């Protein structure tokens, strides 16, 4: 495969120059380039699957500069990945087929960890496991925050607005970053915030520097290659405790979320949380299916009768508290008082821990990510979806909902009907709080190697992006194959924001060599073609 619009001769010359820059063993073509396919592609084996023509893996920032200059000379489209583990969102494959993947996995140095001021400065190839182990092996009293699978990159995940499970701001990974280094398409190196001050002593302490705050334009974009990022770390808390709130009726979700939101906005509850329903997320039966199939999705009274007949409560949420043990007891006690305003609310205590934990204690803990401990255990949960044709991956559908019970009920009705209409196995989305002041309603879509099944999944997935937008719930992140679709829905004032992104693209990367198509941002010469 040759990048579109590039002659065989120029491609061969560019590959030769890449080899000279990084060493021949770090330029991959042929079968080795196939390893950059998206293992979870919903277009697997179809003509529309996004494929790399080659890959180049620099070891240091000077090599990144050389690579972008070579790419500019020969007009080679590059596509940057950090660890390449953004599975469910495109993995290590480019958005624009034929791009050369700029694989930063070898740039895996942990450049600085400050226990005193609780931050780390890392390169893009560092994984959550790497950073965790670095801190643990040195007995530093710091926590990292990790998403479900820990094999990804703190840099890559933050740049895609990913999130984890410890208190805010640490679990909102982009929000927890402080300072970045970026190689522009010109080959220049920019440091943001205080990093622009030679000899700065607060690059990882003060975010803004002086003048416009530009860090945001390097997330979910293609305006530069991020080669370093700083992250604020959570000083190891003294203790952790968990407690669960259960409320019995369908409409209790409204008061439950109102109280929760107030506690969260006040900083009294600051944990990741999910709101699950033992009824909606529980085992199906004929009566439940019939209620769901009704146009109104079943009335509150019907659902309350259904739940009461089975002796089950309707909603529950597990809350986590971190900090000094005596404060946690007081927080949980106060939180219970507040939720007691909901008739028949019930409470139960969950696990509690004191830190640090021994290796043996960690080995027995199931919910590791809530303690900032990386894991790959989430994939065991995904096995449950294996059927016929066998599941080979998944995509996440993740609209952002306001923090209201009414929105949760409405979104469940809308998406449940969309799934049924698309002949996709019915499921109820899981409400979760990852970022500040909003919910994500997660739906996992199975991906297979069967083209017909994938076609059905893709059609419903795209339909749900549109439905979400029609209700004011935009998706915050999406698979590479749907980024144009998702960005299209952010259309205020005739897509003014998208046009501003294109204006920036043309100014910063006029030849359009960096990550064409990422989150709908195409260089000028590809704007009509796309993918």
């Amino acid at each position, binding site marked *: 495969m040759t990048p579109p619009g590039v002659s065989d001769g120029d491609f061969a010359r560019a590959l030769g120059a890449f080899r000279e820059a990084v060493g021949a063993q770090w330029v991959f073509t042929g079968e080795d380039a196939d390893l950059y396919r998206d293992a979870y592609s919903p277009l697997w084996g179809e003509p529309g699957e996004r494929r790399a023509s080659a890959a180049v893996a620099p070891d240091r920032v000077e090599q990144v500069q050389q690579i972008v200059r070579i790419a500019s000379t020969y007009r080679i489209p590059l596509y940057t990945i950090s660890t390449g583990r953004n599975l469910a969102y495109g993995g290590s494959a480019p958005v624009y087929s034929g791009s050369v993947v700029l694989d930063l996995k070898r740039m895996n140095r942990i450049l*600085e*960890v400050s226990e005193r001021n609780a931050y780390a400065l890392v390169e893009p190839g560092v994984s959550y496991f790497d950073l965790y182990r670095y801190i643990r092996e040195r007995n530093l009293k710091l926590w990292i925050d990790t998403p479900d699978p820990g094999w990804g990159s703190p840099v890559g995940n933050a740049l895609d607005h990913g999130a984890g499970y410890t208190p805010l701001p640490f679990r909102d990974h982009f929000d927890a970053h402080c300072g970045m280094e970026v190689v522009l398409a010109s080959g220049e190196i920019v440091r943001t915030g205080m990093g622009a001050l030679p000899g700065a002593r607060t690059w990882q302490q003060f975010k803004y520097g002086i003048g416009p705050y530009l860090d945001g334009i390097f997330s979910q974009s293609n305006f530069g290659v991020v080669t370093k990022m700083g992250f604020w770390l959570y000083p190891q808390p003294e203790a952790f405790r968990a407690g669960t709130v259960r409320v019995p009726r369908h409409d209790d979700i409204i008061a439950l979320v109102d109280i929760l939101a107030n506690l969260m906005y006040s900083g009294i509850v600051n944990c990741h949380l999910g709101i699950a329903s033992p009824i909606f997320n529980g085992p199906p039966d004929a009566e439940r299916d019939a209620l769901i199939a009704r146009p109104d999705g079943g009335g509150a009274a019907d659902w309350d009768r259904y739940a009461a007949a089975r002796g089950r409560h309707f909603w529950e949420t597990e809350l986590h508290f971190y900090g000094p043990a005596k404060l946690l007891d007081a927080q949980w006690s106060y939180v219970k008082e507040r939720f007691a305003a909901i008739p028949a609310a019930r409470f139960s205590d969950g696990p509690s821990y004191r830190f640090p934990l021994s290796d043996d204690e960690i080995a027995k803990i199931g919910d590791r990510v809530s303690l900032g401990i990386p894991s790959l255990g989430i994939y065991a949960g995904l096995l449950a979806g294996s059927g016929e044709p066998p599941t080979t991956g998944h995509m996440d559908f993740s609209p952002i909902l306001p923090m209201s019970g009414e929105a949760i009920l409405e979104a469940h009705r809308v998406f449940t009907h969309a799934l049924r209409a698309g002949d996709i196995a019915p499921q109820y989305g899981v409400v979760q709080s990852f970022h500040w002041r909003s919910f994500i309603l997660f739906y996992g879509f199975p991906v297979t190697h069967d083209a017909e099944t994938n076609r059905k999944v893709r059609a419903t997935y795209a339909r749900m992006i549109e439905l979400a937008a029609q209700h004011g719930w935009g998706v915050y992140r999406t698979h590479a194959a749907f980024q144009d679709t998702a960005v299209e829905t952010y259309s205020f004032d005739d897509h003014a924001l998208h046009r501003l992104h294109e204006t920036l693209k043309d100014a910063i990367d006029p030849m359009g060599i960096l990550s064409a198509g990422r989150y709908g941002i195409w260089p000028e010469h590809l704007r009509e073609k796309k993918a």
Partner: protein
Amino acid sequence: MKAALCVAAAVAVLGPSVPLAQLSSWTIFTPLAQASFPPLVRRGEVAYQARCQLCHGREVAHATLGYGGRMAGTEALQAKYRGSKPAVLEDRTDLTAAMVKYYVRHGVGIMPFLRKTELSDADLDAIAAYLSRNRTRVHEQE
């Protein structure tokens, strides 16, 4: 070291000459190898712990609720073979080096394939030697 760690110190520990498996791995514990193994198998055991064990290791009994300690690879092989073969890869006596290399570079089910920047051919050769060590021994006994 509890004070800030400077760039020079970090590069000295994690410089580019250190084998990939030691630089970056998917484990929360420091990989260690048994001294009694020959060098290639020993390197393979370290690389296996770094890249494979967190999905293919032994599940801990009596773990608290949650996915953290679960092993997707071990659970998938348990479901596939239903006990007719060990679910933990390290216990298998039928694995060949070629089988191991094939699955790592092609993936299977929800297990994605690994790129050469994640696992070099040299480290994969070592993992294949480690996982096929029992087969070699069985064949020697035959």
